[in-house]
């Protein structure tokens, strides 16, 4: 029985449970719903949930664990000689899994039964037949591997049958338990509420758990990087010069400097323009103008960053080079920190302005009235009352823009180039951490080399960087916040 069908059966059973549970609750009180503790549909829901949720959870857990269990059992039966001859257990297991999948496909396509599949082991054309179903298996001719693949199929099929039975039994048990439990005094509504609560909690846990998972994987890979490359070099060297033949210099600082430099220029463009635009929109503009301009500004936020990259490459870069860099004798490259920073700043304007506008609007009108009533002008009111009150939110908006700037890759590739350099000249090509992560991971080197693994160490650095930024902002906001209410 396929997984899809199994889930459908469970859901069908649950659906019946809903109808029957509701029916039973009503018939227990002879149709007088007022004598029930909860509305009749809540009884239906309680049966539905007891039927579907445990069964589906079991299915998910089983499917998650099954490959591990099967691999463990099969691995035990493989002769030591085969493992060493084929270069390690991992490679052998990959082969076995692939062959067993191929056998599945052949069996399905040609309608073979178990015996006929077993007989394939003696077929000299096995390799070709596997190839015909899209499985490339070099080890198919090895009888030990073939046997293991058969064992894999058999164990999998056995476990799958067991799972089907267990899930169906569990669904039926849940159904019966919940169905028989129904009585007029049963607090079905509270049960359903509790389920909703658990659902909400588990969803928020998923978000948190994912974050920790990401950190864990970053830390693990960075760890293996630092085992083959000295950490002191990584953190203290000022030269970034990866070589594919080995002997690379992987100093962090040129990249971090590029990131900071580009982000600072971007924020220097985005924060003043965005904030002043927000002040105009929320404090001075007429409602009609605001209703037109705000969506227009937000369109900027919808433009993919690659398009901004094109803009940087074709328009801004050459203009900055011809009008500023060349006349001032600061360089002749159209890729520059300035190009990427300015274009990124333009991209960030709507983030800053839209968020700040909402925050400024949330400052109560009573604050403004109080200030006007004391004879303050509009700009004094904005400067001394509205902005201080909105400060925590505005800092939040700026931080959001800052983390976008730090994480941005496309504009940097197209606007600032890919040369890692430590320089103060804003018209020189530089690059950032994110760009180098991409180029190191997509390079031609082996995965286990320091040139590739450095990407994870860079990612971890970037992560710590933004974390520190957030913590700092939190502290600042808490210290200077002027709360209204």
């Amino acid at each position: 029985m396929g997984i899809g069908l199994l889930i459908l059966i469970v859901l069908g059973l649950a659906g019946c449970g809903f109808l029957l549970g509701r029916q039973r609750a009503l018939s227990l009180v002879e149709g007088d719903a007022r004598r029930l503790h909860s509305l009749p549909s809540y009884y239906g829901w309680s049966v539905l949930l007891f039927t579907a949720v445990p069964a589906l959870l079991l299915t998910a857990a089983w499917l998650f664990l099954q490959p591990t269990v099967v691999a463990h059992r099969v691995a035990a039966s493989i002769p030591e000689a085969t493992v060493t001859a084929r270069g390690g257990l991992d490679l052998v297991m990959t082969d076995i899994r692939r062959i067993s999948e191929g056998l599945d496909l052949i069996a399905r396509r040609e309608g073979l039964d178990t015996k006929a599949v077993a007989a394939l082991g003696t077929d000299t054309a096995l390799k070709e037949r596997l190839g015909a179903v899209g499985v490339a298996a070099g080890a198919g001719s090895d009888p030990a591997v073939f046997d293991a693949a058969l064992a894999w199929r058999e164990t999998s099929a056995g476990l799958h049958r067991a799972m089907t039975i267990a899930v169906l039994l569990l669904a039926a048990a849940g159904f019966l338990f919940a169905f028989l439990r129904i009585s007029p005094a049963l607090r079905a509504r509270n049960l359903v509420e509790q389920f909703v609560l658990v659902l909400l909690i588990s969803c928020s846990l998923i978000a948190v758990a994912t974050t920790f998972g990401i950190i864990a994987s970053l830390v693990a890979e960075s760890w293996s990087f630092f085992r083959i490359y000295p950490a002191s070099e990584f953190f203290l060297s000022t030269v970034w010069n990866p070589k594919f033949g080995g002997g690379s210099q992987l100093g962090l600082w040129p990249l971090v400097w590029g990131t900071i430099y580009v982000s600072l220029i971007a924020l220097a463009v985005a924060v003043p323009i965005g904030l002043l635009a927000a002040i105009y929109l929320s404090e001075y503009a007429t409602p009609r103008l605001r209703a037109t301009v705000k969506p227009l500004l937000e369109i900027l936020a919808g433009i993919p960053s690659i398009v901004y990259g094109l803009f940087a490459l074709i328009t801004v870069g050459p203009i900055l080079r011809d009008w500023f860099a060349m006349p001032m004798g600061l360089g002749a490259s159209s890729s520059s920190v300035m190009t990427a920073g300015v274009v990124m700043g333009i991209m960030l304007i709507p983030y800053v302005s839209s968020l700040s506008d909402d925050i400024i609007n949330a400052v109560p009108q009573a604050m403004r009235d109080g200030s006007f009533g004391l004879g303050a002008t509009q700009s004094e009111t904005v400067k001394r009352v509205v902005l201080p009150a909105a400060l925590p939110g505005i800092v939040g908006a700026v931080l959001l823009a800052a983390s976008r700037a730090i994480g941005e890759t496309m504009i940097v590739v197209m606007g600032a180039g890919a040369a890692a350099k430590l320089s103060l000249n804003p018209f020189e090509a530089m690059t950032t951490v994110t760009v180098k992560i991409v180029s190191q991971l997509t390079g031609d080197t082996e995965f286990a080399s320091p040139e590739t693994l450095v990407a994870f160490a860079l990612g971890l650095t970037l992560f710590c960087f933004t974390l520190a930024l957030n913590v700092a902002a939190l502290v600042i906001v808490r210290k200077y916040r002027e709360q209204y209410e």
Partner: protein
Amino acid sequence: MNVMQIAERATATATAKMTARGVQVHYGENHALKDVDVDILAGTVTAFIGPSGCGKSTFLRCLNRMNDTVASARVTGEIRLDGEDIYDRRVDPVTLRARVGMVFQKPNPFPKSIYENVAYGPRIHGLTRNRAELDQVVETSLRKAALWNEVKDRLQAPGTGLSGGQQQRLCIARAIATAPEVLLMDEPCSALDPIATAQVEELIDELHTQFSVVIVTHSMQQAARVSQRTAFFHLGHLVEYGETGQIFTNPRDPRTESYITGRIG
């Protein structure tokens, strides 16, 4: 309060501080205030009473041009402060509001320290030359608002951390600090408990020796307790205006009598 006491209350024979003639206010299509004539006397507490939506707050907001901040409002007629038309083109509403201060219905201290709240007006109008003078203004204003003893040890604490009554007195101190000539109060006690209300009323009684005070209130007892003159508004009209004692004991208009005896409202 004893009715006879109100009737016998001495009223200042003062000159008119503000005069309003033929004031009309429209909010878009809505004709909110119809042909109002009022003289606000110097050194007097004037109370505006009347049912909700009768135009008393609207008229109050005309007196310091706060209606300018409402886009749909249109004010016609003439309002003079010391003989000068406040709706004249040459008058800056911002300077006007420094001379005619306002306290709002809900306490609205700025999210700043107590000190900064009071210092706000003097700072933006440049009323003081140095820090010591500013300190002095803050202290005097807080003393006048009967708040000094409660907050003198925590002037740097946020103004929003005070209790409701204290917040309202802080707002009054804030308004006093710009040394206004007229103080407008829009239902200043409606968000306060009885004890805080009593404190604010006592304060109003003390303040009227220095400023003209105009107070909008829903409570007729309050109007009777604090004011020397009372104006009764109904459906956008000024129905009757006179000495508080006379309005409450011997109203000339039957609508006034109905309102103060609770038959309409």
